[in-house]
């Protein structure tokens, strides 16, 4: 099982797709045909999934699979274990998310600073983004989670949870800083010129004029990255954090049955799908705004 870190969360490409899509449809003219389309979509969905269901249930080995993945007793047993374990993922996610938002912003700002004097800072931020996007996240988690405590420096934390937070923060900050940077670059230079012409310093122009617009534009792609982060919290099970995935492994081994994994998958579905819908809604709203702005 390789987490979605290896593929990398969605990045700045979203900004472009946000612009490239066509105008939104509206108006009464479409109402009747919209109703008909809904009916057709509904019908075809039922036929489609009905067919798949039929094929699966009539597969030669279905009863066997049903026993090992859909065992009611195991289900009832593992839910009380697994759902509380998910709280560990939630904690991990919340703490890392805040740290990522801050660190990534600092990195993005460093990379946007002009002038030859600041070249070392820009270089540092660039190397950081390259390194942490190049190395698979699981490896970073391993290296930090086993390597740093292995140094046995006095007073250094031994709780794997700490290293889990640090590893996820380091990896995701590299991605998120790129998203921020794309946002900063998408703000037209004339905005900065207008700010500077009023006497604002470079930093003030960034702080009051460029960043607020940049951040607003990248909220949907940021949320996409956080969907990725949510799922990648299971990767920290490798360094001994007992979270939802580790817990479901324990339950699976105890019951010799895979149903706990199904429970875990469902928990993620329930949490992630609303977030994904929210992102879609926000992207659609942004597109409308953008089109209104270019009118």
């Amino acid at each position, binding site marked *: 099982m390789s987490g979605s870190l290896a593929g990398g969360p969605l990045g700045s490409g979203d900004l472009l797709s946000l612009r490239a899509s066509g105008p939104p449809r509206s108006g009464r003219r479409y109402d009747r045909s919209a109703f008909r389309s809904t009916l057709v979509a509904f019908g075809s969905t039922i036929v489609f999934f009905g067919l798949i269901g039929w094929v699966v249930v009539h597969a030669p080995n279905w009863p066997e699979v049903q026993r090992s993945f859909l065992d009611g007793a195991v289900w009832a047993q593992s839910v009380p274990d697994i759902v509380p374990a998910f709280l560990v993922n939630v904690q991990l996610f919340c703490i890392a998310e805040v740290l990522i938002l801050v660190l990534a912003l600092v990195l993005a700002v460093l990379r946007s600073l002009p002038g030859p004097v600041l070249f070392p800072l820009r270089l540092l931020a660039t190397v950081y983004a390259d390194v942490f996007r190049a190395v698979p996240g699981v490896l970073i988690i391993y290296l930090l989670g086993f390597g740093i405590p292995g140094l046995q420096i006095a007073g250094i934390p031994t709780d794997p949870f700490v290293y889990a937070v640090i590893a996820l923060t380091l990896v995701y900050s590299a991605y998120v800083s790129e998203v921020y940077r794309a946002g900063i670059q998408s703000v037209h230079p*004339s905005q900065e010129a207008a*700010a500077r*012409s*009023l*006497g*604002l310093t470079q930093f003030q122009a960034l702080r009051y004029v460029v960043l607020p*617009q940049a951040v607003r534009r990248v909220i949907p792609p940021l949320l996409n990255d956080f969907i990725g982060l949510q799922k990648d919290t299971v990767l920290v099970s490798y360094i001994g954090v007992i979270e939802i995935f580790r817990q479901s492994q324990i339950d699976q081994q105890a019951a010799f049955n895979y149903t706990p994994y199904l429970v875990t998958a469902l928990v993620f579905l329930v949490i992630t799908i609303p977030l994904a819908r929210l992102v879609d809604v926000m992207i659609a709203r942004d597109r409308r705004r953008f089109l209104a702005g270019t009118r």
Partner: protein
Amino acid sequence: MSRTTGSRGVGTTAGPSGQAPAGSGNGQARALRVEGVWKSFGATPVLRGIDLELAEHDVVCLIGASGSGKSTLLRCINLLEPLDSGRVFLEGEEITAPTADVNRVRRRIGIVFQSFNLFPHMSVLANVTLAPCKVLGMSQREAGERAVGLLDRFGLADKRDDFPDRLSGGQQQRVAIVRALAMEPDLLLLDEITSALDPELVAEVLNVIRELARGGMTMLIATHEMGFARDIATRVCFLDAGVILEQGPAAEIFSRPREARTQQFLQRIVEAGRL
């Protein structure tokens, strides 16, 4: 006002008169002096030795074909573009000196762009108060009062809480002017501020400028609105291929241009029905 003619510009980088008196002899203080300004983008020279002087309360219009360097000159004066050579003095003080504080200079020179460049994430009031608060260190209340006063004066009082995307082009451009005025600049640079507007909105913006001129604001205006230039300018400068080819009172430039290039340019304008 002297009528100076000709492209004497080549190579007058550091003129003989390095010391610019703030309140000079003839009673009219010099607000702006531009001396031998050269500017290239890559290998293309855009400004080729510009000399220009504005007394206080002068309203000088820059006319000239597209690409003649009007915008570039304004951006150079506001230090948004670095000069290749030459000097710029604001009230006798060299603002192009390496020791000059760029941010302090820009507080004193307002610029309004063709494309408004309002901050879209801020209300009209916030657009106007941002610089007074952050740059001049005024309190929100003080800056707010000043802003409301100015918005009121230019018929924008009821728009203070709107965001720029809710305003017409003319209203947006008037807000941009108010935003520049809120810094109480010594000099206002206007770069074709009506070119992006629908014809019926041009008048409301030009009226604002007329009022500012009556109030004694020193202005350098790049414009394609010849009628407006004739009305308002104390002097018109014809910019051609990076030099000021001819300058003088509007009446003279428009009715008796000396240079062949100026005649051609005005001829084309007349043919286009814009004079």
